[in-house]
């Protein structure tokens, strides 16, 4: 909040109004209002394009015994477990690869890791399909050679989530690489020089210099990933056409199918409110962790 109290004291509502109004209107109409409406709809039996009647807490009671919701929650948490910590560690490793290089090589390595992050999800999923779907595809061929037969990664309950997690890490890790790289560059070079003079090897330098100094950035990356991945939809939905829905449906996908395929907007809103509380819990966790970090 720096700067907020050192401003001109005189209130100038008339000058501020036209500058603030467009944002406030958009924000009120497309964010505040739909959020409140989500809450209100969750107490009704409304359909997608029709307001419903008040049903009290019925939708929330239904949540507790709904196996589809339970499965979606489990699948989401499974996806989070498969992507957040592994993705952060891979991001750190790749950032260290980039940081070791110099000049052109550094720029090339960074681009190689970052370009997938720029791609639209449907490009990524199309590539993933063709890489794996037949014995003639590179990964399918590899599985054929090692295993005798291709592995139906996108239609098997056991393989589906781990495969989507690998795809997700390949696709999005560039973001974490950037943040880690900024962190690595901020570490003073003379720390390493001094450690080398003291005879510290690579591992000792990593253990006693790099890792402790990167801890704050690691916490930031981890919590950003946590908040991001719990809201996953696009790539899971696009890869799920052949997968058993019990093991491939995540929370946002469940909201989508309850609302748009079963036309139960009231119940879908209750699921959305549940998602809201899960994200809220993670946001609060992030806030607390970052505050502890800053207080040190």
């Amino acid at each position, binding site marked *: 909040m720096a700067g*907020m109290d050192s401003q001109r004291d005189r209130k100038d509502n008339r000058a501020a109004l036209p500058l603030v109004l467009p944002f406030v209107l958009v924000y009120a109409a497309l*964010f505040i209002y739909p959020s409140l409406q989500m809450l209100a709809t969750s107490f009704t039996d409304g359909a*997608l394009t029709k307001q419903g009647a008040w049903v009290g807490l019925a939708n929330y009671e239904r949540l507790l015994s709904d196996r589809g919701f339970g499965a979606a929650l489990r699948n989401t948490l499974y996806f989070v477990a498969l992507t957040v910590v592994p993705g952060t560690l891979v991001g750190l490793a790749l950032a260290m690869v980039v940081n*070791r290089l110099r000049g052109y090589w550094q720029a090339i390595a960074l681009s190689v890791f970052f*370009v997938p992050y*720029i*791609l639209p*999800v449907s*490009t990524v999923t199309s590539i993933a399909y063709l890489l794996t779907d037949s014995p003639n595809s590179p990964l399918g061929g590899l599985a054929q050679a090692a295993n005798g037969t291709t592995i139906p990664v996108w239609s098997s309950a056991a393989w589906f989530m781990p495969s989507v997690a690998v795809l997700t890490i390949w696709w999005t890790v560039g973001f974490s690489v950037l943040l880690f790289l900024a962190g690595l560059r901020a570490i003073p070079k003379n720390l390493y020089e001094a450690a080398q003079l003291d005879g510290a090897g690579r591992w000792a330098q990593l253990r006693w210099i790099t890792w402790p100094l990167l801890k704050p950035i690691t916490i930031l990356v981890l919590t950003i990933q946590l908040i991001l991945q719990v809201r996953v939809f696009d790539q899971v939905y696009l890869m799920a056409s052949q997968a058993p829905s019990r093991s491939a449906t995540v929370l946002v996908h469940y909201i989508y199918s309850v*609302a748009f395929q079963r036309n139960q907007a009231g119940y879908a809103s209750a699921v959305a409110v549940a998602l809201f509380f899960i994200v809220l819990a993670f946001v609060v966790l992030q806030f607390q962790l970052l505050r502890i970090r800053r207080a040190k």
Partner: protein
Amino acid sequence: MSGGLGRRWDLGGLALWVASLVLVGLWAFPLAWAIFATAGPADATAGFFRTYSNVLFSTDLGRWYLNSIVTSGGVTLFVIAISSTCGYAISQIAFAGRRLLWYGILGSFMIPVQALIVNHFFLIYQWGLLNTWLGVILPQLIAPIAVIVYKQFFDSIPQELGEAAFLDGAKHWQIFLKIYLPMNWGVTVALAIIVFIGAWNAFLWPFLAVTKPEMMNVTVSIAQIRSYGVSGLAAALMAGLPVVVIYLLFQRRVTEAVTLSVAEKDEA
């Protein structure tokens, strides 16, 4: 680790080099393979040409590109316009409700927009905007991060600059347009690029808001074609091409903007 020759033949160092090379190769492979695969088995250049001209002229790719350009461009323009002005006001003008607005913006990260799809759909349906460009654009205008970045940058401009102009009788909107905005063109360009890329790549909302094939964004339509042959792959690569080109042209700005959006939010 004893310098000179010993260092050159250091086994640990060699292992790290090999590991680095393997990682770079692994990350480059899927995209590189996809590009080669679209050439088909025969003569590469001819195959390349045939595949891509086939995709360009036998599908509605041109129309889908247009939809993507209009909606992503619209989102970018609106977001930059409403958040730069709002960021200026919060940074430079004392007005009623300013604190409330600022905390409202900071707090909005708690609500996942994915949770709002049902109500966004209802709203856009009521306004009769399903299957229109505006209907695709509107719910994507919630970009609190842009306001935060602008506010932080405007805060860091020396107060005397605006004050002097103010005493000369300039109005706030003039100071904003003539001093604060031009002083932060770099920020505006960086934000515009990542907002555009984000809107181009958006999937969930454009997928829900449009059911008519001729109104679809390119990223949605290629997922709907579902022909996973070589031409499907070529179309998928074409859908990503514009954003990759933007990235390659403005590499530094893109990476700056991504780190910036995280850092400024963390600061605020």
